[in-house]
Each structure stands twice: as structure tokens, then as C-alpha cells.
């Protein structure tokens, strides 16, 4: 297996000093409170408002000290509530190397993701960058952009100030399938300010991708839960042929399929935090979350039938969100081949984690 990235500065960068062993161990009561608070915020607010509420709460700092609890609670809750925020950028930045964040640390930086289907966002040749990428969780106050780009020497990170002239940098707010998702498309050309190269750049990119995949997977699993809840409620309440439609085995089994897929993705997310190979575990969690979303989308849509096809029913909002998030950082279609290639290159299968 590939070497796991060394602990990254995000768990100790400027935005949240690494706690000592005692400090990082929040007690059970503290964790329960954290989870409940994030859940509540994610349900009460959306978009820029939620971003502000999370900033006020100190989400980046909480993420630095309790990465698992903070990410799992917030992204699952956002997925389930159908809300979103710029916290995704906090996760990416929090897992980037401190050297990468450099002089801008503390500013509202954004990391640019590859466009759908691509491995990196840009290409650097002879000191010049060509960029087309996506920002998820774009803040209203746009700060410097950090771009992972291919180059002759592998992945390098390029810094782009947000105030470049329009002919060099364009940031277009993306509506697409899910206008509420706070996405932007970035295109840029011109001289590249490479802020990190070599093995450290590659390592930072791998850590950022793994963290991003986990966060997206949590949000997708949350959306799957919402779809399933809607469909189960409908199957209990909707009466046809003299009985609730959920009493028909054909209907029940569709929902069982969605439930099993959701449980599987959730279990894969749980194991991410103790797996020997963090990158592979995150690929699997993202792939399985996307797979669960596709199964749930099909089965729940069918069970919700006519009402689920209307604009007034909330189902389609979760569907749209899951479809878009599935496409970012590797979809359920793309990832199995990448996982297989990685296993074939290693020649062995990892043992999950020890009992």
C-alpha cells in the first residue's frame, strides 16, 4: 500500500494548534454536546448564514482538536438537513500542510478541486498555469486560491490572489443541478506562483483529497438518510388497495436495499479513522457513499412514486445534492477502478483493521 501521509499541519497549523494528548481527548459529555450543537446549527441555518454560525462557534478549531467528531457530525447533519456551508473548505485547509498555507494562513483561502472526472485542477508548464476547477463551499469574501496542479515534476501547489485581473482569473458561481450548493467554477491562465512542490506537495494533496472524500461521504450518507426517511414515512402512511404500501413486500424490500447500502457506507466511514491505509479507506468510503446514494435514489424515488416526482416534495433536493456530491473527488463509477488499480499495484489486500 502507498505510504500514509504524515500527520499534516492542519491538525496543528495556525488555525488550531495541535493539542497535547490530554487536550485532544474530549470527554464523552463534551463530544455529545459538540455533536448536538453542530447538528442543531446545521438544521437551523444554511449557506452563508450557517458558515457564519460555524465560524462563531469556532468550527475550524474544533475540527483541529476533534477531527472525527466534528466532520462526521456536521457533514452528516448538513446532508440530512439539506443544508450546506463553507465548512468543507475548513476541512480541506485543515488537512493541508502548514507550509502550503504559508503567509496567508488565517485568511479565507479556498482550495480548488478538479473538475468532474479529472485528477487535478490545473496544469503548470514552463512557469505558467492553465486552470479549470471547482470550489465547493465558496465563501462570500473570496481570499487567495490554492490550486493543486499537474506539472512535469508531479503535483505542485499554485497560489492565485483573488484580485487578479479578469483576463487572468474568472470565478463563476455555479447553479447547475443544485444552485444552493455554494459552488464556483474557476478558470485561470498566466504566471504560476508555485508555493509548494516535490514530495510535500504530493503528500498535502493526498491528505486534502482523503479528508475531502470523507466529508463528502458523510454529507452524502446524510442525504441518503433523508431520502430513506421520506420514503419510509410515505410507505407507512400511503394506503392503496386497502393497506399501507409498505406492507407490500416488493415495496419493503426496496427500502431494505437502500437501508443496507446506507449502513454499509456509514460503516466504511467509521473504519476510516482507524484503517492502516487512510487514503484507500477514504476512497472506499466515498465510493460506497456514492453507491448508496444511487441505490437510495432509485429505490426511494420509486416508493415515493407520484408525490416524489413533484417539485413541492423535498425528495428531489436530496437527490440533486447527492448526485452532485457523488461527482466530486471521484464518483461511484470512477472510484472502483482506481481502487482496483491501487490494490493490483500493491499486490495484496489490506486487512481492514485488527479486531
Amino acid at each position, binding site marked *: 500500500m502507498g505510504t500514509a501521509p504524515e500527520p499534516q499541519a492542519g491538525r496543528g497549523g495556525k488555525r488550531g494548534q495541535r493539542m497535547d494528548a490530554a487536550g485532544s481527548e474530549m470527554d464523552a459529555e463534551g463530544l455529545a454536546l459538540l455533536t448536538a450543537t453542530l447538528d442543531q446549527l446545521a438544521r437551523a441555518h444554511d449557506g452563508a448564514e450557517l458558515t457564519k454560525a460555524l465560524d462563531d462557534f469556532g468550527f475550524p478549531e474544533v475540527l483541529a482538536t476533534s477531527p472525527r467528531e466534528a466532520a462526521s457530525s456536521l457533514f452528516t447533519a448538513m446532508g440530512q438537513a439539506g443544508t450546506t456551508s463553507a465548512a468543507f473548505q475548513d476541512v480541506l485547509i485543515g488537512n493541508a500542510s502548514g507550509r502550503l498555507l504559508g503567509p496567508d494562513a488565517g485568511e479565507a483561502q479556498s482550495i480548488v478541486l478538479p473538475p468532474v472526472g479529472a485528477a487535478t485542477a490545473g496544469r503548470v508548464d514552463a512557469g505558467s498555469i492553465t486552470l479549470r476547477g471547482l470550489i465547493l463551499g465558496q465563501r462570500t469574501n473570496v481570499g487567495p486560491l490554492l490550486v493543486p496542479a499537474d506539472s512535469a515534476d508531479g503535483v505542485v501547489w499554485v497560489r492565485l490572489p483573488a484580485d487578479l485581473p479578469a483576463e487572468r482569473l474568472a470565478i463563476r458561481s455555479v447553479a447547475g443541478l443544485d444552485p444552493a450548493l455554494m459552488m464556483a467554477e474557476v478558470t485561470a491562465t498566466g504566471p504560476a506562483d508555485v508555493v509548494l512542490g516535490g514530495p510535500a506537495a504530493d503528500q498535502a494533496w493526498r491528505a486534502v483529497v482523503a479528508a475531502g472524500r470523507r466529508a463528502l461521504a458523510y454529507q452524502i450518507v446524510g442525504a441518503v438518510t433523508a431520502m430513506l426517511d421520506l420514503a*419510509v414515512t410515505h*410507505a*407507512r402512511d400511503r394506503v392503496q388497495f386497502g*393497506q*399501507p404500501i*409498505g*406492507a*407490500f*413486500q*416488493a*415495496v*419493503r*424490500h426496496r*427500502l*431494505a*436495499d437502500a*437501508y*443496507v447500502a446506507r*449502513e*454499509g*457506507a456509514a*460503516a*466504511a466511514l*467509521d*473504519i476510516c479513522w482507524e484503517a492502516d491505509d487512510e487514503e484507500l479507506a477514504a476512497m*472506499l468510503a466515498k*465510493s*460506497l457513499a456514492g*453507491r448508496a446514494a444511487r441505490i437510495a435514489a432509485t429505490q426511494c424515488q420509486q416508493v415515493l412514486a407520484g408525490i416524489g416526482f413533484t417539485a413541492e416534495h423535498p425528495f428531489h433536493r436530496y437527490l440533486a445534492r447527492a448526485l452532485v456530491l457523488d461527482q466530486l473527488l471521484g464518483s461511484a463509477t470512477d*472510484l*472502483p*477502478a*482506481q*481502487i*482496483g*488499480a491501487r*490494490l*493490483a499495484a*500493491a*499486490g*495484496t*489486500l489490506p*486487512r*481492514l*483493521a*485488527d*479486531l
Partner: protein
Amino acid sequence: MTPAEFREAFRSWLAGVDLDASPVQSGSVAVLLAHQRRLQRLLYDADLMRWGWPESVGGLGGSPVLRAVLGEELTSRGLVHTTTWTMLEVLGPAVIAYGRPGVVTEIFPRLLRGDETWCQGFSEPEAGSDLGSLRTTARRAGDGDSWVINGEKLWTSFAHGASRCVVLARTGPAGSGSRGISAFLVDMDTPGISARPLQTMADVDEFCATSFTDVVVPADRLLGDVDGGWRVAGHILGCERGAIFWQRGAWLGHHLAALLPLATDARSQALVGDAFQLLWTFRARSMATQRQIAAGAVPGAETSVDKIMIAAAEQAVFDTARELLAGAIETGDTPEAAAWRREWFYSRAATIYGGTSEIQKDIVSLRLLGLPRGGR
């Protein structure tokens, strides 16, 4: 003894032992069982076989998770066949929980040491998923100091090589359903028992049709209470989801790993990746179940999810094998090809045995999703 210490003990034992695992490739139940017994004896003599079982029955105590670790270490290396390893775990815990202490303390060490194989007489020609409709009867005889069993059992794995059988029989009146069933631990050399292997499409002679004609069973071989067999059966089916699933997942990993050298193009890698993610998701789920068991919980309906997942993983792994072996399963005549062929065919039953996937989906939808029971 922690799982980590136990794993270490196993590995150092393995490094020093000369073990021929080639019988695991055999399609003959006699060869597989002989290998299993020989291996168990080696493990028993090294004390490894006894950890995780209560001291009262000849074990060394410790968490049952140690047994899951042992199974994983063995099947992940292909040192034992997953199905022969399974029987011990299927029946052992229930016999300990429900057997008469005198009987259990006498015979259990023989099971651990590999002196005996046990089998499970549940299914019948007219009672598959609908186990509550079974027709085999047990009637009190003598002065109540014995029972007489009559009936037919089907799909009795390893019955022709077994010393004892856990038999479910009706002790209540006809039509008493699941409430009128009792469980017995029956010696297979009792007069009136015959076990005939069934030919299966998997070319494995594991399963038997087993008949019981006026089979006399001493009263102390009753497991649990009279008419309390349903609980014993539930316990047995629940146990399947513990250490057994864990080692079966490792067995699947062993087979998928063997295909990695063949995954040289994007299509093959996509198949391997997909099979692996289904195996991974099952293993991640099962790990949580193993931890619950270690903490003393008896998992219930939620393990139907594990069952659905392992069946999907098993079929995906062997479907991937069929693709990547490029014709070996269909046209190969080597022993290796025959072994893959058996495993592929056996995997077709993964969604059938131990409660079909449809039964599991019913349990998930009724008990975990709270959907209403209904007609069609």
C-alpha cells in the same frame, strides 16, 4: 490474552509448524474433514484452539473475539476451508448455553480437539425458510427418561462425517408452529439414523439428506427446555453472524487477493475494485458486530444487514474470479480450476443458506425500518 497477543501467539506457532494446506483445495468432504481435525488437534495441543471458550468446557477463557481472530488467521491464509471451520462455531456456543452441564463438559473438549465433527439438523424437505413448520417429531418414551425421534432432515452439512447432530423436532402438537419445537443433541451412531450425501451443482458432497427412524435419545440430551427449541435455534443463527462471518470474510479476501496478479487492465481492476468495496463494506459492518459481541451483547435483527452484505460480497468476489480467470471456470480441468469452480457454484447459495436474502430483507424492513406486516 488480548486479540493482539493471541494473534502474535498464532503467528509464532505458524512459523514453527510444517502444515500442508493442500487438502483445502479438495472437493471431498472426507479429505476436508480429515484436514480440519488434524489442524484442530495441532491447534489444541498448542493451546490456540482453547482460547475464547469457557474454562468449564475445556477452554482457557477469554473473549470470544479470540476465536474470530483464530478463524481469520486461518482462512485468510487458506489454511482451512471456511465451511468446515464454520460448524464448530455454529453449534458450539448454543450447546454450551443450553446443554446439560454433565453432557457438555464430557463431550465439548472432544469437539475442540478435533476428535469429533458436529452437524446441524434444522431444514427439512417441507421446512426451509419456514422452519416453524417442521415435521420431525420427538415423543417421550420409557418413563420419560428418553425421547424417540422420527423424521427427515435436508441440507445437513457434514452429516455423513459427523459424530453428533443438533436436531430440531416437534414436541408440541401438530400445528404448534415455532412454539412446539425442542432441540436435541443426538449421537449420529444411534440406531435408526442414516445420512445420504446429496449431489449438488457445486460438486461438493457436503450436504446430506438425513433420516431418523425411531431414534432413541436420552433425556439429558435435550437442549434448553421442552418446547424451547426456537430459542436454541435463534441462538445458533445469531452465532453465525459472529466469528463465522468474520472468518468467512477473510476467506473471501484470500480468494480476491489471489486474483490481483490478473488485474492488469482497467476493466479487471474495476471488477476487483467493486468486489473489494463490497467485501470492505461487509467487513467494516461486521467489525462493529464483533465489537458488540466482545462487549457482551447478543446482536439481533441488525445482523440481517451483515448477512445481506456478506452474500453480496461473496457473489461479487467469485463473479470477479470467473471474469478474471478467463475461461478456467468454464473450460479448465486443472485441480485449481476445479476448486475455483466449486467456490463459484457454492457462492450461488450465499443468498440462500442461513436464511435467504428475502427473509433478511423482511427482517430489515419490519424490525429495523418499522414497516407494517402485510399480505403480498
